[in-house]
């Protein structure tokens, strides 16, 4: 069913990696690296288009790379879950790339802001290769069909992320990058050990085969525990969230957008894939209650911190901690209800968070560039100066809140209705009431924006494309909220 405008799904990983090598060799020369970026984006778009068309047409399918057999070769598997994440990842990547390009090449901020001094910031030469590497790694994560491949993709994405955080150049960024590194590495090793145990038990790592062979016994439980612990550490679920806020706040805005929107989302997707899909048989509900409880505490913890931090980007980072907690409180609902609506509810919530959080971070990046810093107490009244960024941040916040019309609401609605059918009342209440906590910190920022105040010194006009791409992503949350019906209908 390959239409003329589609490409094989393999390009999703191959193109960014090739692009990364190409930009490295080109050492960030202006015209050339833009061309490579455009090519990569085009290839990714064609691949995603093909992927979505095929999944709508004939349902899940797998693609062998270089047509080698299962045990040795790499397989990309695409089903409705991964298609949803990949389809949404494309616009996020494009918007973030535009903003990254805008920030890299617009004039430096004159004031020497300790946190955001641009001189040691990323240069095109170092930034683009790592950026495309991360892009490839994330796509690989959503496509991998066997456990070891997932391990490699996790490492790839993790290292690229660490390096990108370090490109901010300032001391706090380096410390945060190292903290992120060690957390990431610990998680990967734990995941690798889990992979080893799974291989020892089932002699295969292919998810398809494992799904049929899985049964509940001692070694499988230990393996699942190791896999799960590694992923929960990478997903920054409370109480192992400490590395995330520092890393996402210190990184350049587009990087933290991608980290919060996609890189943190992948482990959540994998836990959903492994615990609720592949090893569904071996999973007692008590685990999900434990994880859900941690998630609920995470919501409160993240929101409380978000209400106190002084900087805009750390506020958004702690919001990610809270939203990840929210996703994990939804796990028990999906497990108990087991219905298609519940699964799509969680997917909508995750996808909605990805797009909304990306638009908020990009908007924050724009505001930080315009003000030269992102300390909230000195940005009063930025609504009048940067309306587009404010609307982007606000609309993104509304989607996190689950305001009807945005995709966040669709997610919460499906989760609530399916949850209440199986009487999972505490989780439904947690999911619904989390909106109030989210509202608290979103409106903390909006109140600062709306407050009428004289313009602080040193603010400079912002490159229009930065504000517009952030706003476009925010509008996407509404578009997805209103328009996702026809796409989702035919899927299982």
């Amino acid at each position: 069913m390959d239409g003329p405008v589609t490409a094989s799904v393999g390009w999703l990983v191959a193109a960014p990696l090739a692009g990364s090598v190409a930009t490295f060799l080109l050492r960030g020369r202006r015209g050339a690296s833009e061309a490579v970026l455009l090519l990569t984006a085009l290839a990714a778009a064609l691949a995603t288009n093909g992927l979505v068309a095929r999944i709508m047409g004939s349902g899940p399918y797998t693609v062998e790379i270089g047509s080698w057999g299962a045990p040795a070769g790499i397989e990309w598997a695409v089903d409705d879950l991964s298609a949803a994440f990949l389809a949404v990842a494309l616009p996020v990547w494009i918007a973030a790339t535009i903003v990254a390009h805008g920030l890299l090449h617009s004039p430096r901020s004159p004031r020497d802001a300790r946190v955001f001094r641009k001189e040691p910031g990323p240069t095109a030469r170092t930034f683009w290769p790592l950026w495309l590497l991360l892009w490839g790694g994330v796509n690989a994560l959503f496509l991998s069909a066997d456990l070891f491949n997932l391990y490699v993709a996790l490492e790839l994405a993790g290292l690229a992320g660490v390096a990108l955080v370090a490109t901010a150049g300032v001391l706090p960024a380096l410390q945060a990058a190292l903290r992120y590194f060690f957390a990431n590495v610990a998680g990967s090793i734990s995941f690798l050990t889990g992979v080893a145990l799974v291989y020892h038990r089932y002699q295969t790592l292919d998810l398809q085969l494992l799904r049929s062979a899985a049964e509940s016994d001692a070694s499988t439980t230990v393996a699942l525990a190791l896999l799960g612990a590694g992923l929960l550490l990478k997903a920054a679920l409370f109480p192992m969230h400490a590395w995330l806020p520092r890393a996402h706040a210190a990184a350049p805005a587009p990087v933290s957008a991608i980290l919060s929107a996609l890189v943190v989302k992948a482990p959540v997707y994998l836990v959903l894939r492994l615990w609720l899909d592949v090893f569904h048989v071996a999973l007692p509900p008590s685990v999900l209650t434990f994880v859900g409880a941690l998630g609920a505490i995470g919501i409160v913890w993240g929101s409380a911190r978000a209400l106190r931090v002084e900087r805009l980007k750390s506020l958004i980072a702690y919001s990610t901690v809270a939203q990840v907690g929210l996703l994990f409180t939804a796990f028990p609902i999906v497990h108990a209800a087991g219905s298609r609506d519940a699964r799509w509810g969680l997917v909508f919530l995750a996808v909605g968070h990805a797009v909304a959080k990306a638009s908020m971070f990009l908007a924050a990046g724009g505001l930080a560039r315009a003000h030269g810093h992102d300390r909230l107490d000195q940005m009063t009244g930025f609504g009048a100066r940067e309306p587009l960024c404010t609307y982007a941040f606000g609309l993104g916040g509304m989607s996190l809140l689950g305001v009807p019309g945005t995709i966040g609401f669709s997610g919460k609605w499906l989760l609530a209705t399916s949850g209440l059918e199986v009487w999972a009342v505490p989780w439904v209440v947690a999911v619904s009431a989390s909106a109030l906590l989210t509202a608290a910190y979103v409106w903390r920022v909006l109140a600062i924006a709306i407050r009428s105040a004289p313009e602080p010194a040193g603010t400079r006009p912002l490159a229009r494309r930065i504000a517009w791409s952030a706003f476009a992503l925010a509008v996407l949350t509404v578009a997805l909220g209103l328009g996702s019906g026809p796409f989702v209908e035919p899927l299982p």
Partner: protein
Amino acid sequence: MTSLVLYPLAGVVALALGLAGLVTRPHLLTKVLAFNLMATGASLLLVGLGHDGTASSDPVPQAMVLTGIVVSVSATAVALAIIARLSRLDPDGVERSD
């Protein structure tokens, strides 16, 4: 103590030691070393479990370990690069990271 049990056990011990070192030692370089110890432990565990006593050992775990080694090498490289940059900015920051 047949070899079937010895190697995986050694792998687990190395893993545990590595994790303990990573968590408790404040010095950044020690942490990198601890990480490598963990990686080796995991590889040892992987290969140890793959060997089922007969002559022909299973090639797949070995392939995985190869990739694992490559990954841990590149990870260490990234970590050292960052530590180097960090020491230039904050010389005594290397010893006592929280």
